C-alpha cells in the first residue's frame, strides 16, 4: 500500500544513457565512476565508465565530472493548496522541488480549509495526479481544523492515502488529546509528526529569545518552548509504544531530548532544516523577514548541536519546511510578517556550500540524510541499483550560482538564502522514472 500513497502528474518514463558519472549512493555502497542506463524509467544497467553506448531511443547525457545521486526526499513542505494558491500550488511547489533535486515530498495539511477529511484528501490527490511534477504524498491533520479539540477520522484518512498525521504549524497543546491520537495510531497506522511549541512560552515571540531579541526589542521565543514539548511527547510515545516524528528541531535541548528518547528505545525520529543547520539569531539582526521562521533561528551553540545530531544520527533526515509566502505578506515590519522561508531550490547547494565544502559533513552523509525522510513515512528509499525505479539527481558540484539570481520556480521568493553565493548546481532530476527537471544551461546532450 505504501508505494501507492504518493501521486504524480502525467510523466513519460525516460530512456537515458548517463555516461561517466561519479555515482554516489552511500546506502547502496557506490562511490565510483559509472555509466548508468535508464530504460522505461528503471535503472537498467550500471557499468564501468565508457563501456555503455546509447541506444537510438535513449537520450545520451555526458555526465563526466558530474555527480549522480539518489534523488532527495523532503518529508516536510507546504504546497499551500487548497486555499493559498497565491503563495504556491501543487504545480509550482513540485517544480521548485524538482529544481532542487527532490524526487519526492510530503505536503503538510495546514491549508485552507485544513486537510482533515477524506473527501478533501481525495480531491487533492486527484489534483496532484494532474499537476504534481514529482510524486507527492499528503499528511492529514491530527485534530479537526488544527483546533486541538477533536481527532480527525484517522482511519478513513489513511484508507484515502494519508501518509500520517500532523497539526504542523501548531502544537497539539493537550497531552491528553495527543495521547488519544497515539492510541488510535494502533488501529490506523501512519507516522504522527509533531510541531513542538508551548504556546504559553512562545506567545508574542517573533524570534529566538536571547541577546539579539533583547537588542531589537522583539518578543522572544525561548528554546524551552520546543524542548519541553519534545520531552513531553517523547515520553507519551514511549508510554503508548507509538511512532512519532519530531519536526524541524531547532535547539540543543531538543536534540538531547530526542537522543534520550532513542536511547530508551522509543519509536521517535526527527528532522532538521537547512536554515537551522546554517543560520543563527545573528542573521535576524537586520530584521529581514525572510529570516523569520518557526521555530526561530537560535544560537551558534544550538546550530552546532543540530549539525552534530545530524552527523551522529540522532537527527534522521533533512527537511526543508518549504514555507512560501507572497511578497506583500513578507514586505511588512518583522513582527507582522508570517513565519516561514522557502527552501526546496536551495537545500542541497546551501548545505553543500555551508557544511560539506568546509569539511563539517561528508557529502555521502549529506546525501544519506537528504534521502532518509521517505523511510520515516514507510515509503521506499531512493536507491541507485539495478531494477530500481530511476530517482536520480545529477549535480555539478563545482557549479557556482547566486541563489535567486535567475528567479525561482516557486511562486514565492521568501528564501532565507537569497543572494548567497552557492556551490553545487542541480542539472537534472529524474523522479519515479521521468525527467522532471533540466537546468536551462544543461540542455546540450552528448550526441
Amino acid at each position, binding site marked *: 500500500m505504501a508505494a501507492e500513497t504518493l501521486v504524480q502528474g502525467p510523466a513519460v518514463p525516460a530512456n537515458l544513457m548517463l555516461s561517466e558519472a561519479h555515482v554516489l549512493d552511500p546506502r547502496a555502497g557506490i562511490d565510483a565512476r559509472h555509466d548508468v542506463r535508464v530504460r522505461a524509467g528503471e535503472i537498467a544497467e550500471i557499468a564501468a565508465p565508457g563501456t555503455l553506448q546509447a541506444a537510438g531511443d535513449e537520450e545520451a547525457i555526458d555526465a563526466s565530472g558530474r555527480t549522480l545521486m539518489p534523488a532527495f526526499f523532503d518529508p516536510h513542505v507546504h504546497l499551500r493548496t487548497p486555499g493559498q494558491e497565491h503563495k504556491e500550488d501543487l504545480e509550482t511547489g513540485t517544480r521548485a522541488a524538482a529544481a532542487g533535486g527532490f524526487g519526492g515530498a510530503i505536503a503538510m495539511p495546514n491549508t485552507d480549509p485544513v486537510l482533515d477529511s477524506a473527501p478533501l484528501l481525495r480531491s487533492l490527490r486527484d489534483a496532484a495526479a494532474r499537476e504534481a511534477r514529482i510524486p507527492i504524498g499528503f499528511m492529514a491533520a491530527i485534530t479537526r481544523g488544527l483546533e486541538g479539540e477533536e481527532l480527525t477520522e484517522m482511519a478513513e484518512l489513511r484508507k484515502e492515502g494519508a501518509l500520517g498525521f500532523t497539526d504542523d504549524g501548531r502544537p497539539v497543546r493537550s497531552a491528553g488529546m495527543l495521547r488519544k491520537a497515539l492510541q488510535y495510531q494502533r488501529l490506523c497506522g501512519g507516522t504522527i509528526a509533531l510541531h513542538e511549541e508551548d504556546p504559553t512560552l512562545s506567545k508574542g515571540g517573533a524570534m529566538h529569545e536571547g541577546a539579539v531579541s533583547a537588542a531589537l*526589542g522583539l518578543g522572544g521565543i525561548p528554546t524551552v518552548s520546543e524542548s519541553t514539548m519534545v520531552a513531553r511527547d517523547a515520553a507519551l510515545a514511549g508510554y503508548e509504544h507509538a511512532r512519532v516524528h519530531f519536526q524541524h528541531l531547532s535547539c540543543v535541548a531538543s536534540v538531547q531530548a530526542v537522543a534520550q528518547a532513542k536511547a530508551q528505545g522509543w519509536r521517535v525520529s526527527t528532522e532538521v532544516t537547512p536554515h537551522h543547520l546554517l543560520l543563527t539569531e545573528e542573521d535576524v539582526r537586520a530584521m529581514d523577514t525572510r529570516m523569520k521562521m518557526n521555530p526561530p533561528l537560535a544560537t551558534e551553540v544550538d546550530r552546532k548541536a543540530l549539525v552534530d545530531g545530524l552527523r551522529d544520527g540522532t537527527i534522521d533526515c533533512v527537511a526543508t519546511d518549504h514555507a512560501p509566502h507572497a511578497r506583500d505578506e513578507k514586505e*511588512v515590519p518583522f*513582527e507582522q510578517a508570517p513565519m516561514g522561508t522557502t527552501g526546496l531550490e536551495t537545500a542541497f547547494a546551501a548545505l553543500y556550500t555551508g557544511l560539506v565544502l568546509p569539511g563539517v559533513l561528508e557529502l555521502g552523509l549529506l546525501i544519506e540524510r537528504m534521502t532518509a525522510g521517505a523511510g520515516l513515512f514507510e515509503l521506499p528509499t531512493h536507491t541507485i541499483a539495478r531494477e530500481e525505479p530511476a530517482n536520480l539527481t545529477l549535480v555539478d558540484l563545482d557549479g557556482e550560482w547566486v541563489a535567486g539570481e535567475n528567479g525561482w520556480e516557486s511562486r514565492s521568493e521568501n528564501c532565507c538564502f537569497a543572494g548567497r553565493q552557492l556551490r553545487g548546481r542541480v542539472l537534472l532530476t529524474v523522479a519515479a522514472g521521468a525527467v522532471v527537471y533540466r537546468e536551462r544551461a544543461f540542455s546540450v546532450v552528448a550526441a
Partner: protein
Amino acid sequence: MNHLLSIEELDRAEIERIVAQAARFAEVSDREIKKVPALRGRMVLNLFYEASTRTRSSFELAAKRLSADVVNFAASGSSVEKGESLKDTVLTLSAHKPDAIVLRTPWAGAAELVSKWCGAAIVNAGDGKHEHPTQALLDVYTLQRRLGGIDGASIWIVGDVAHSRVARSNIIAFQRMGSRVTVAGPPTLIPRGIEALGCEVRYTLEDLPKADVVYALRMQHERMNESFLPSLREYAASYQINGRRLGPRQVLMHPGPVNRGVELSGEVVDSPQAAITAQVEAGVVVRMAVLYELLTGAREPGSDPTRPAHPGRPDHPGLPDRPETNVKQLA
C-alpha cells in the same frame, strides 16, 4: 545623515553634533517670536500608528519653529483601518513629496523599512519596543545641561525594560557618551540577553544610591493583566523611586507620562532633583536639531541657523545659503 532610524547607528561625534545644534536652537525658544525660517517651504509629515500626544506635538512644534509645513497623519480613522498596508500608506503619502516623515509604529524595524520605500528623510519616533532615538538624544542633552557632561556617570534605568524602546535607545546612547548604565527592575520585565548591550543588570534597588542619575520608566497598567507583576502595589514596594530611595544629589528622569504613586512618588516628581520638565523642553530643541540636520544636510561646523546665513539676504534670516544646492537630493 540621511535618516535618523536608531541610536545604534550614531557615533559619539554625531550625538554631540546634534546636541550642540540643539543648544543653539534653545535660544529660539526663549525669544518672543519663537520661529526661524530655516526650513521654510519644507514639509514634515507626522505619521503616527500609535496614540501619542507628546511626541507628536513636540515634533510638530519643532517643525513649526523652523517654519516647516506640518501635516499630521494619524493611523486610526484613516485608510489604515481599511486594511491598507504600511507600504501602500507610505507610497501614497510620498506622492505629496514630504521632505521628512516622522514615523511612530508599534513594529520594530518599521522606520528602517520605510526608509527603503521612499525618498523622504525618515525620523524614527518609536518603532515598537526597539528604539526611540530622539528621546535618547533629548535625554543626553538634558543631562549634559544639568551635569555639564556625563562621561563616567553612573546611570540607572529602572522599571519595565522589556517593553521599553526608551530603555534600549538610552542604554546605547548613554554608553556612547561615556556613562555606565545599569538596568534594574522585576526579573519578568528585564529581557533575557539585555546585558549583551553592555549594561549591568540588577533585580533590586539596593545599590541605587551609587547612581548619579536615576531614570525611571513608565509602568504600563496592561502589564498586570499579562502577569508580569502580581500587583502595582508590589511593584511600587520594590521599585518605586520615592523620597526614601532618591538621594539629594541624584538627578531624576522619566520619559513621561508619569504614573504618580507607581514608578515615582509624587514628592520626587515635584522635587528639585527631577529633570522631567527639562526633558520636555529639550524635546523640542533636540527635534529641531534633528530635522534641521536631516533637511539641510551637512553644514559648515559652527554655522548658526538662528542667524542670517547669508549677509546678502537680510530679508531671509536663517535661510540656507543656496537652498537648491544645499538640500540633500531626495530620490
